[in-house]
């Protein structure tokens, strides 16, 4: 038998019976949980240590809040400063059910939109809590001095995002992530100065230390010196972001990676819905093989920009030479009530379809127009500049084209991963004491995330949910024995890490880390990207072990492990990508329905929309690791809908 057929022969384990959400009316569950949570006496908190890996929105907000509460926080990031975490790049905005517009918004509507937008593959309890907390997040950020956009009367401005018909997205021009992160970072810095947070920048977690079944520490490498060290605590929080960079080209920052969550998975944390990835419809198309990353053009542009392609195939005229009646505004045509503001998965697939028909524009026909001509006529250039100025500048810098005069060209790109470590209602993984927040967990977005909801979730997790639930865990584990570097579990984790790095360095082959990253990325984009089918996924599953083998025969990393070595960092992350890619393909193969961002070619409605199979697949797929290349075990968490009744999503 080949390695691949073994791997696909996964078995089904016990279902996950209880995700630990309290019972009762959905709007009361979070209050119930908070009331039931045990508390740690303020005088004892200094002695309780929490490791937080990551300083993005989720990690920074969690670290600052836990330190404010009096816990001893030890926090890590691989960048030189916590302020540079990938969250800084989020552009468009953050949702909140404030209903400042009086346009019919409410907590219930945000809850409803998010469950529906996620194509009925998320938990009602979690999503409702998220919608409730959204309101407090805006208050918190304003108090920190986050300069949200305001109207002339001095009140906060909002705009619309895809998949909804109310205006509930708060924003700070095209730099919302930056401003929110700086708010959380500054709160963190205050705690660093006050001694509440011990900060380790340029330090990368390479393994998790589990003692007696509980997460008690991490193995981390000081990226400047290469020194491998252990750090111990009473609980560990992973806020390490998403894994979109498996695809090599994505909108994620270059160094975003999956190592923290993958290592935790190998140590026993289940991985939830790995195949749910989000392909964002509006990114700048690639220009050549040198391309190192793709740049997002915020979804907010779809508020005023109109998407179109020529009606005729292979029409190579310049856009201004194509008369109005020869343009196909295909989203407005197919989805008249949502028009250009359909959810991301739908907009991306529609773009792919018109390009596949040969109606794409720009080099290679891999692009569609996003046209601001009408908006400039209607609102004036100044108003458009006010709203989108920095995005237009960025577009021009990259493409050398002026979007005030020529329509932008856009194409879908990998952007976000809805999958991640499986967590219960408390955001705790299947390893007691290991929590996951932000994009690193699988929690709230089901099979498709709505725009401006990741920032909301990251901050809800970090500011409000985790601090309440982790203290319950800490209260229940009071008196746990301290762990030291001499503990066999720690010694073993360090040994394995050192061996892995030494093995990479020892190959001394003839291929660079980037060449392998490109290869696995292209394979995933082609076979486990916007559209997936059985034969393609099987092909990928056959190919991945071969690439992995080739890696161990041909990788070349110059230098040593005892110094600043960026090639070694990259190569080590690849080792985890290969395994994760395999699990993503297996998950995609097993889920023979289409839902949200997961589009199985075999399962579509007559007009080409994703066709869910609720009787068979209304569950979270939580995968248990059993060994390298070994078939994993699938645990199903059944999803029940009491409040939002699953229906074929309709945006027409």
């Amino acid at each position, binding site marked *: 038998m080949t390695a691949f057929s073994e791997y696909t022969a996964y078995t089904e384990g016990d279902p996950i019976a209880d995700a630990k959400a309290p019972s009762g009316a959905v709007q009361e569950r979070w209050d119930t949980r908070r009331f039931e949570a045990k508390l740690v006496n303020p005088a004892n908190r200094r002695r309780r240590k929490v490791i937080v890996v990551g300083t993005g929105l989720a990690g920074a907000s969690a670290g600052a809040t836990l330190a*404010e509460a009096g816990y001893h926080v030890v926090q890590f990031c691989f960048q030189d400063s916590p302020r540079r975490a990938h969250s800084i*790049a989020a552009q468009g905005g953050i949702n909140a059910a404030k209903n400042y517009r009086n346009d019919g918004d409410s907590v219930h509507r945000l809850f409803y939109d998010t469950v529906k937008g996620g194509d009925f593959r998320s938990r009602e309890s979690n999503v409702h809590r998220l919608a409730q907390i959204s309101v407090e997040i805006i208050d918190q950020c304003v108090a920190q*001095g986050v300069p949200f956009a305001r109207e002339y009367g001095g009140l906060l401005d909002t705009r619309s995002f895809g998949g909804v018909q109310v205006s509930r997205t708060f924003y700070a021009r095209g730099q919302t992530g930056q401003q929110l992160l700086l708010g959380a970072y500054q709160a963190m810095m205050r705690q660093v100065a006050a001694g509440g947070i011990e900060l380790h920048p340029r330090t990368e977690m390479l393994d998790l230390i589990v003692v007696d079944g509980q997460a008690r520490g991490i193995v981390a490498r000081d990226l400047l010196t290469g020194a491998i060290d252990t750090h111990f605590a009473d609980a560990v929080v992973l806020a390490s972001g998403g894994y979109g960079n498996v695809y090599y080209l994505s909108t994620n920052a270059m*160094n975003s990676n999956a190592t923290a969550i993958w290592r935790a998975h190998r140590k026993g944390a289940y991985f939830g819905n790995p195949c749910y990835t989000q392909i964002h419809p509006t990114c700048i198309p690639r220009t050549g093989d040198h391309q190192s990353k793709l740049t997002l053009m915020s979804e907010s542009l779809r508020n005023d920009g109109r998407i179109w392609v020529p009606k005729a195939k292979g029409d190579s005229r310049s856009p201004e030479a194509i008369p109005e009646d020869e343009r196909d505004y295909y989203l407005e045509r197919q989805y008249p009530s949502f028009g250009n503001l359909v959810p991301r998965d739908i907009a991306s697939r529609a773009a792919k379809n018109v390009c596949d028909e040969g109606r794409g524009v720009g080099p290679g026909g891999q692009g569609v127009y996003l046209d601001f001509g009408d908006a400039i006529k209607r609102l004036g250039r100044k108003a458009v500049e006010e709203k989108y100025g920095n995005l237009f500048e960025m577009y021009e810098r990259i493409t050398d084209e002026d979007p005030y005069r020529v329509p932008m060209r856009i194409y879908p790109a990998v952007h976000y991963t809805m999958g991640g470590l499986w967590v219960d209602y408390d955001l705790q993984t299947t390893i007691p004491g290991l929590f996951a927040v932000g994009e690193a967990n699988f929690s709230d977005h089901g099979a498709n995330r709505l725009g401006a909801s990741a920032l909301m979730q990251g901050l809800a997790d970090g500011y409000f949910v985790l601090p309440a639930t982790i203290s319950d865990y800490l209260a229940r584990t009071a008196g746990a024995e301290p762990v030291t570097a001499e503990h066999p579990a720690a010694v073993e984790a360090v040994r394995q890490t050192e061996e892995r790095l030494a093995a990479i360095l020892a190959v001394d082959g003839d291929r660079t880390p980037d060449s392998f990253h490109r290869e696995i990325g292209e394979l995933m984009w082609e076979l486990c990207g916007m559209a997936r089918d059985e034969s393609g996924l099987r092909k990928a599953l056959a190919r991945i072990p071969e690439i992995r083998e080739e890696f161990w025969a041909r990788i070349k990393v110059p230098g040593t492990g005892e110094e600043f070595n960026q090639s070694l960092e990259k190569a080590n992350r690849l080792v985890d990508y290969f395994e994760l890619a395999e699990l993503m393909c297996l998950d995609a193969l097993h889920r023979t329905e289409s839902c949200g961002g997961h589009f199985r070619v075999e399962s579509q409605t007559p007009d080409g929309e994703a066709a869910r199979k609720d009787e068979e697949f209304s569950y979270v797929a939580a995968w248990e690791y059993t060994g390298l290349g070994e078939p994993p075990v699938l645990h199903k968490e059944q999803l029940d809908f009491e409040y939002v009744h699953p229906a074929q999503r309709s945006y027409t």
Partner: protein
Amino acid sequence: MKLTLRIWRQENASQPGRMQPYEVDGISRDMSFLEMLDVLNEQLILAGQDPVAFDHDCREGICGACSLMIDGQAHGPQKKTTTCQLHMRSFRDGATIDVEPWRAAAFPVVKDLVVDRSAMDRVIQAGGYITAPTGAAPEAHAAPIPKPAADLAFENAECIGCGACVAACPNGSASLFTAAKVNHLNTLPQGAPERETRVIGMLAQMDAEGFGGCTLTGECATACPKGIPLASIATMNKEWLRAQRKATR
């Protein structure tokens, strides 16, 4: 395009560095400057040589990680553009390009083009925040903020903490960076209660870190990729004087 690069190579903080020439060929005009360096590094790795270390992450001009002196200019020749957003179309075919790290007393070199900018984090720790512990916030609309004040705060809040202002300044001053944060927070009503302690604390930390004094040469604002205005420094100085007066009263 074919280019000659002269790049600063330095093994670590304790070794001396030197400029080292390299040739790269087949560079496309559509590549970013960092993608051009990627091409060089692929060549170096395959030749068994140590690739050039440089900081970068978002490659979208927002994280502030990238930090190169290109032909003596912080972030290179294009105005209001970070190194990662600079494209090769800004250079001539056949050009010789000098690439160096940020140079400033407060930014020791880590390796090649990578420097240690943690001093900037410590300046923020010294007061670059508003004390608003989680959960204590009033309703967001409780205090409307006039749009001009909100816009001014935003303009200053755009700083990405890259350190180009420090690298461009003949004195190695971090005044523009510090002023951006002081202006952001002191302009807002939420920032008012800590208005004096903020400016005094941050400026004292700036001095303690070994950043030089400001002589208003304006090089910082010219180099700044986010267009933080030079006027912010004047406002910060006024805030500082005001705070001093208040403290001695």
